[in-house]
């Protein structure tokens, strides 16, 4: 304990030494206290959802800290309390730290303030940068990258992740390495977003050759499509990607789905990818236009059709690519970040708006225009900003992605670190501040440089992180919320959870079934944290669940069906003895063997559950019967025919009649019809014996894709009697899709149709006990979090 405190003391003095010079603070304790609060408290009391609404990543107010009165301050009471002491995890604060806090509060709780950074630079412009500015395109940017990086000093230091971590580890060591099964689950989820199958996990476990972890990392990173699929939801959230250019008349940022997939599948250099997103002069720039009344608007990540849209676009760019939260500086000076007066933000926004911004403070114009300028000092940058809007956007994108702007690379490596270890090197990851230290500033600086040196190859940095001992350390609950050497628990995203659940119960990975491709929103996907709509930029999903969401996991039909209808669950339930079932289930769900206690609990539970009994269950969902679904609309395109409903006693009500070639159908049904793997689509049909058609068919659609099935020749049902036609989800290729339209096709003849729906896969009562066990394991914290 004693030595631990000493190390920590040493650490603090080193932080002080390394800290950026800070102007204008009085008592010298502020930065130390900041470091202490950031390291031990801000993990929970910070970030997008600070615990108890209390933030300790900035100067806390009364009653938490009452300046000049430490004994009345809640902070002191909580860190010294006998019960419910803070921090809740890890060792209590040392006596020295507590005294430091006390002295700080009694000295009036000074908080370092910083001066706004110099905005313009007087140095002569760098020819390499000028060239990139005058020649839009990828080649110029690539050439610029190397030349400009050569002017950036290479960070001193060990050049190895673990060495940086070790140097600042309060424990004076790295974390304990995790075992193979923890590693394989972690790395599968982190790289491709699904858990491994039993076979994959066992194969890895039985491999005794050295370097197997490194090889696995390489193998997974080489699965380009799956890797891109795992990234897509993050970037859809971050870019506020919406499949439509307009929502009820509101312009959106547009649809980036394919653009994201392509960039990550090809592992596009990150600087080029971002330049392309921001710069209309780049050939692959994702944008489209849409008409609103008489006006044509450009739909893109940067929108400048109105003052609010331009401010929002600039703020979003700052947040996502420069780790700066600037929204509140769009109306007035930043309330908590003195480095960002409103004018600095407006100068930044002017780069993207294509015009200098008028200063409007809290809805009142100050009759002043702020000239656009890049907000960070950038050596060699020309200080004159182009007037032309397109040139200006090119200027902005080029400077933003310039290697001499360290914030750009630091923001993304920090996001990578947070993605794989649960906490950023700098927190909050969207709010870099000059007045707040990263926990590992040298590591952050080096990782950023290293990324640039390797051509902004994200996989390079990811490979470095995943191969580090720090990433491969075991989770340690005692270190929860504190920084390293232990990774944090990370909640699976909705996509990771559902895709993994499918793998667990079927022991098959089918990329076509992955959730990210489903544009509909369900109670289940929202419960798991997937937003219904990406109408605001967001870089974090909810870290927790509440009762409404938990109810969906407890009783929701979608998850229930997914688990209990799993092929592998049924097969295992039939074939093995109870001990073997539990053994296999732990491998399937949690990617590890059960302990002796877990095995005993599992076997006992299977016995109890078998006694509780279950019945065979088969459900049919009739989508259409005697009328098209309530909210649906008839397809009225000109090649389509109207619905012709006739009374047909043999159909138990109405039937829709079709004579001759063509199709009729409905679209836009809501809620959509969900089709799970194993489901069977059915519809009933009667063919006129006097004039039978030569072919009939059904097409389902989700508005974008279509799924067809046809019957002709010998496969046609016999005429003159009502027959049920069936097609499995797999035959249609519509498994794990939600469809909202159907069309009935026909060649010649006369047919009557009725009733369209799906028959859910029958739930086998013999599989119920193992299904219950699978449900329990899949809803345990170990499954919902990456450990």
């Amino acid at each position: 304990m004693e030595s631990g405190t000493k190390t920590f003391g040493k650490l603090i003095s080193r932080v002080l030494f390394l800290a950026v010079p800070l102007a204008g603070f009085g008592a010298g304790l502020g930065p130390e206290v900041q470091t202490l609060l950031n390291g031990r408290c801000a993990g929970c009391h910070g970030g997008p959802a600070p615990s108890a609404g209390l933030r300790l990543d900035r100067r806390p107010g009364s009653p938490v800290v009452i300046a000049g009165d430490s004994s009345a301050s809640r902070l002191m009471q909580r860190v010294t309390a006998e019960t419910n002491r803070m921090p809740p995890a890890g060792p209590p604060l040392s006596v020295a730290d507590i005294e430091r806090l006390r002295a700080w509060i009694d000295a009036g709780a000074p908080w370092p303030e910083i001066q706004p950074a110099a905005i313009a630079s007087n140095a002569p412009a760098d020819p390499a940068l000028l060239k990139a500015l005058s020649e839009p395109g990828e080649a110029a940017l690539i050439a610029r990258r190397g030349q400009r990086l050569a002017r950036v000093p290479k960070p001193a230091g060990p050049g190895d992740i673990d060495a940086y971590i070790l140097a600042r580890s309060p424990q004076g060591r790295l974390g304990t390495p995790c075992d193979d099964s923890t590693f394989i689950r972690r790395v599968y989820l982190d790289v491709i977003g699904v858990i491994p199958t039993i076979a994959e996990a066992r194969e890895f476990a039985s491999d005794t050759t050295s370097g197997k972890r490194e090889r696995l990392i390489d193998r997974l990173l080489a699965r380009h499509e799956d890797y891109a699929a795992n990234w897509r939801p993050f970037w859809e959230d971050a870019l506020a990607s919406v499949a439509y250019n307009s929502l009820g008349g509101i312009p959106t940022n547009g649809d980036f789905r394919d653009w994201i997939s392509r960039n990550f599948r090809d592992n596009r250099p990150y600087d080029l990818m971002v330049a392309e997103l921001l710069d209309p002069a780049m050939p692959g720039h994702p944008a489209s236009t849409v008409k609103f009344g008489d006006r044509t608007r450009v739909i893109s990540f940067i929108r400048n059709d109105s003052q609010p849209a331009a401010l929002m676009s600039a703020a979003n760019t700052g947040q996502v690519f420069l780790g700066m939260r600037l929204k509140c500086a769009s109306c007035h000076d930043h309330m908590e970040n003195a480095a960002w007066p409103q004018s600095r933000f407006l100068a930044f926004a002017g780069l993207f708006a294509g015009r200098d911004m008028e200063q409007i403070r809290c809805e009142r114009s100050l009759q002043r225009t702020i000239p656009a300028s890049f907000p960070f000092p950038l050596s060699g940058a020309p200080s004159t900003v182009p007037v032309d809007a397109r040139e200006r956007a090119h200027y902005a994108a080029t400077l933003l992605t310039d290697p001499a702007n360290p914030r750009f690379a630091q923001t993304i490596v920090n996001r990578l670190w947070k993605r794989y270890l649960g906490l950023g090197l700098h927190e909050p990851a969207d709010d870099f501040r000059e007045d707040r230290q990263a926990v590992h500033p040298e590591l952050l600086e080096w990782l950023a440089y290293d990324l640039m040196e390797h051509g902004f190859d994200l996989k390079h940095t990811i490979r470095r992180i995943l191969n580090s001992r720090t990433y491969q350390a075991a989770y340690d609950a005692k270190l929860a919320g504190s920084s390293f050497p232990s990774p944090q628990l990370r909640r699976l995203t909705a996509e990771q959870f559902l895709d993994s659940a499918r793998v667990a119960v079927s022991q098959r990975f089918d990329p076509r079934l992955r959730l990210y491709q489903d544009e509909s929103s369900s109670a289940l996907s929202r419960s798991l944290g997937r937003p219904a709509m990406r109408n605001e930029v967001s870089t974090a999903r909810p870290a927790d669940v509440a009762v409404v969401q938990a109810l969906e996991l407890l009783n929701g039909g979608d998850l229930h069906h997914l688990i209990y209808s799993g092929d592998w669950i049924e097969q295992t339930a039939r074939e093995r003895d109870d001990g073997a079932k539990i053994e296999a289930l732990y491998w399937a769900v949690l990617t590890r063997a059960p302990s002796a206690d877990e095995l005993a609990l599992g076997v006992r539970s299977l016995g109890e559950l078998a006694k509780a009994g279950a019945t065979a269950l088969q459900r049919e969902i009739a989508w259409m019967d005697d009328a098209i679904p309530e909210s649906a609309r008839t397809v009225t395109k000109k090649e389509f025919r109207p619905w012709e409903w006739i009374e047909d006693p043999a159909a138990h009500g109405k039937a829709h009649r079709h004579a001759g070639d063509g199709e009729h159908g409905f679209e836009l049904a809501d809620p959509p019809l969900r089709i799970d793997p194993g489901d069977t689509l059915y519809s009933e049909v009667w063919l006129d014996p006097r004039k039978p058609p030569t072919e009939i068919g059904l097409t389902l659609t989700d508005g974008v894709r279509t799924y067809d099935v046809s019957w002709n020749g010998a496969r046609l049902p016999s005429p003159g009697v009502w027959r049920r036609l069936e097609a499995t989800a797999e035959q249609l290729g519509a498994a794990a899709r939600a469809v909202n339209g159907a069309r009935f096709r026909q060649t010649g003849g006369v047919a009557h149709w009725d009733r369209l729906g799906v028959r859910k896969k029958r739930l086998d009562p013999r599989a119920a006990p193992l299904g219950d066990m699978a449900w329990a394991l899949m809803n345990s914290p170990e499954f919902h979090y990456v450990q």
Partner: protein
Amino acid sequence: MSNEMDRRRFFATTLGAGAKLAAATASPPATADSVVWIWLPGGIAQTDTWDPKSHTPYRAGMRGSEVLGTCESIHTAADGVRIGSGLESIAEVMDRGCILRSLTSETKFGAVHLKAQHYMNTGYLFPAGVKAPGIGAVVGRTLGRRDRGIPAYIYIGRDIDTSDEEKQFIGEYIGPGFYGPEHAPFMIPDPGSGLATLAAAAGMSRERLELRQRILLRASALQPGVKDSPQAALWLRNMEEARAMMDSPVKAAFDYHSQERPETLRAYQPAIGPEQVRDKTYYYGHRFGHGLLLARRLVERGARFIQVEYQYGPFKGFDMHEHGRDRMMEMKRQIDRPIAQLIRDLDERGLLRRTLVVIATEFGRTIASGRAAGREADGFAENHTGEDLTIDTESMYGFHGHFSSSNAMLFFGGGFRQGLAYGRTADRHPMTVVEKPVSIVDAHATIYRALGIPPDTHYVTEGRPFHATKDGKGVPVADLLV
């Protein structure tokens, strides 16, 4: 047994704490404990409902400016307060309500319903930069639960499984916004079928469910590493709370078919059914009416904030761009009896004193500016008088233009004054507010005032405070309150 004990102890500790906090922040004493927010999106023609002018019957070739009202106005139980015909039941309870006729928005929304709905539901213009919480989430988070077994924010009458992008958008702004899942509404799409997840999935017996839950807790307690994490503790607590919800008063509230008298059930039925409306594919009257009955039962059991919606659909329901007279009458006859019955029931039970019932829509309506209504450029319809429009078919007769400049909102009980119409709009087009204008932010502040929530109540996100009313500056309208 011990499970049950744990559950009780859990509720006593965690939920009790929320209540204490609320008491500490409620500086002016509250006059209401519960809210039923009746949300009628689409944009209601105030001229045919809560703010009638003269009745100007249809005449082929009449000027748009001549259309001042498509129905007669009727007396109400409140002296001197008249409302549009078709609302006879509500007229009978108007002595318990208060009409705000001078609600106005400085932002003109033109054709865009969703932005106006976002504004009315959150008090913030879209985009707000962060996901803004709906008013129910603000109330739920600030005041917490009234009854420990009933979620603080319940939302009735909106589909949740959807591939419709507008519905997805709406799902966000009625939600918790940046507050996070803990403050999400408890969504009940259809009161008739209850909330499916309050009952075990098909085929699960109660016995198996209990057993499975026990296995979840036991297996979780054995999980190496994770079991000691703060996340695991919270996770399991929520799973336990969800399980407890299955036995809660919320669930009992759904059993209205067997527990309410047939005449009560009938009283919450709309006067017209789906077969009697023009567009037979769009009818939520029964769902809406029973939603109000369910809301009453939930208020009786201790709910805090319940929003009941007549589900919005573009060009459907109250969003009328043709046949305005006839469709308005259809909609009025769908909402009239259930709303009046809710007021009566709450009053008879002595609950109206501390329950605030609000009726709101996103904007009012005016005469259309052209034949193809609903495509006005931003702000266009706000100033015109209809002088240039010739009404040459009956389908054009009605209030088909969006009008952000004036709107009406109703309040019943909960400390609002009763039997009153507040504010005045012009009697001729454009029918803008001419007396005592009230902004939407101030209307929200007034509702918050009744609940004892200061308008500058805020929660921090992205390093800045986000207030219950914009910048914390909403000012309650004292004249609306007792």
